[in-house]
């Protein structure tokens, strides 16, 4: 059975029919065509599907899609303002903070939630903020550096 769900996706009103029991990740990817959140585990362990709901990070594979009705959902697909990249995106590019790129969208969402709340985090606060996002390529250090760099750039701007 399909039911209609309306929510804001990256600032735009979105209406989509969802299958009963569907998770938000599938609905974003298949229903809305936003392929930026990734499937990595379906059990909330890897964080590749992290999106912001009401500004707070959630693992979208464990969110029952219909529970986001009326709420605001943000994904990496909406992180840049057209060609203008978000400071996090620029810092990830310059700091070599992605290798295969599969964990990157989730990593960026966790980092954005942190910086929106805490514009100048410490290193350990950054580590804590991305502790639910697994990366198998980088060893995390360049990612942590990039998030700290983005905070610095945002502070300077």
């Amino acid at each position, binding site marked *: 059975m399909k039911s209609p769900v309306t929510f804001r996706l990256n600032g735009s009103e979105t209406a989509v029919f969802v299958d009963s029991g569907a998770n938000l990740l599938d609905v974003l990817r298949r229903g809305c065509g*936003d*392929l930026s959140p990734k499937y*990595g585990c379906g059990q909330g362990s890897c964080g590749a599907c992290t999106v912001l709901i009401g500004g707070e990070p959630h693992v979208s594979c464990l969110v029952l899609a219909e529970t986001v009705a009326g709420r605001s959902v943000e994904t990496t*697909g909406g992180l840049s303002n057209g060609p203008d990249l978000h400071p996090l995106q620029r810092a990830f590019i310059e700091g070599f903070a992605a290798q*295969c*790129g*599969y964990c990157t*969208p989730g990593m*960026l969402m966790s980092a954005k939630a942190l910086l929106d709340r805490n514009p100048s985090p410490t290193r350990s606060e950054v580590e804590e903020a991305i502790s639910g996002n697994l990366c198998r390529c980088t060893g995390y250090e360049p990612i942590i550096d990039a998030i700290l760099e983005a905070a610095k750039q945002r502070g300077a701007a």
Partner: protein
Amino acid sequence: MNAEYRKDLFADERSDDFDIIGKPVIRQDILGHVTGRSKFYDDHAFDGLLHMRCVRSPHHHARIRSVDSSAAERQGGVVRVLGGRDVPVNTNTLLSLINFGRDDEPLLATDKVGYVGQPILAVVATSVRAAQEAVDAVKVDYEELPHVLDVEEALKPEAPIVNEEYPNNSFDYFDTYDHQKLRFGDVETAFSKADHIVEGEYQMSPIEQAPIETCGAIAAPETNDRITVHTSTQALFFSVGVTAKQLDVSSARLHFIGGTVGGGFGGKVDSHHEPLAALACLATGKPVKYMWDRAEEMQVGGPRGGERWRIKDGVMRDGRIIARAFTGFFDAGAYTRLSSYAVQKSTGHLPGPYSIPNVASNVYCVFTNRTPSTAMRGFGITAVDFAIERHMDKVARAVGMDPIELRILNAYRDGDMKAHRREAKNCALIESCQAVAQKTGWRLSADAARASSKSGGGVGALGVIPETVTDDEGRIGERRRSGLAPEPFSGQGTRGLLPEGHSSNNSSAFGNAPQREDMEAEIERLGFIGAAGVPPTPQGPMDETASSARPIAPSETAHTTHPAGARGGPSLPAAYTQRPASTINQPFAQPPAQAPGTPAAQQPAAAEAESESATTHFQRGVRRPGVSRFISGSRRR
């Protein structure tokens, strides 16, 4: 980045005008990564996409008495249920694409299962849930068989047969031995002269690559009779070749798109998703996705294989290691995949970066009822390096020597002869040890601090290939018949002697000149050579190993380039230099069983092969029964 470039070291061996190293480079794919727009295989949308789930073995080892999928086929949303009989060429081995090893692994098991999670049926349905429910509805009647999960248990006479293609539970090397041999010098005599014998056993468990993107593929029909396959593979041409072979279709019909891989680390080379997805696509005419969930990735995905190594060193009081023997076991799991190759890779790495004049090793690729293992970052090297370096520390303690100094004393120097009969070049272990000592404030003796990779190498016995004792122990089947111990020279087999200085550079064993000097094959690595210098006749019919050797008839060019015996080595046995072409291309006495309904595609190919000149440098395709004529391309044999 805190990299430090030691430009003082080996300054005369390179130019220092780097224009890439040491400077930041923006990755070409990173804009897609940070905007979420990089297209991984699952980021392609298809209308009417079907989903595939597999019925998997709950047992380590069991005979399949019967499979009943009738209830599953009637369930809502189920489009097709595929079994091994639906696969045109169900049995494959990954390295058959380079003619190494025999086909031993079914895409979908039909008669028996060899590990927990082995796929038996593939259910194609309109949703993942419908496919899962149908999987539950399939009834498989199993007769559980005894299983073996330990490499050494598997080599014992009483162990159950894991993989019928290799009934001794070990991969067959060169049609002759149940292990890969390395013989260099005379370890037994050296052990008897050593002041200390230091032995150790080291083990590494299997490791799952755990990429964040699980393995998968989507196969979709094109309008021009082709199939487009989006895949997470790390080995696109393996995947194309395997799919062409197992589906018995021309690779020209397979349009493979990959390259954007969500982490691989070796775990995405096995090429199982592509043939299954493409088969389902052919069977249904619809786009089909076969994606592992995380649980499957962890349970079924081929890990880095477990390894066990035993090392025995003969050491002099001053710390010089004069002999080292290895016994290594690779846990291949139930099927070969890449483990046969990993064993050879590890053998080429022995005895580590040290100049040891007497080395012997027996390394086994062993079949057990565990998940088949495959590639992972440095597989074949990582575990034995761990073993070697742990053992170096143990040797250092045994002789009461500083562990870094022990390494410097025994390190390869330029000009030393390595155990695989290549001269050591561009050595840098000594300098690395010195840099580590310096960085950590570790005090080295004046001699160790002064040592250099560029001096003292190739002196005396360390610069030549020594007279080498060989043996014929561990012929295929012998261990399982008689319970032979796995260590080198552990039995009463025939000993042979290879004279000193039998350098590969003099070898014209295979007639044709290699493309590069480094590619010269070495006759002695094929195994035993008797006292009279006569190699054994391979047992049984010729198979892929022999036919994968280069065409043999020697050309004049080859003789000119590599004059036999120039350094006093023996002239090569005629059997090796002049094996007739008809022997090389002789097909199997018994072609492997085929799935019913498979077109008999192999016969013309085999016949054609016989008429082809064996001196042809490049040959087309693969000439073995059971191998698709559609495996494409020309390559050097």
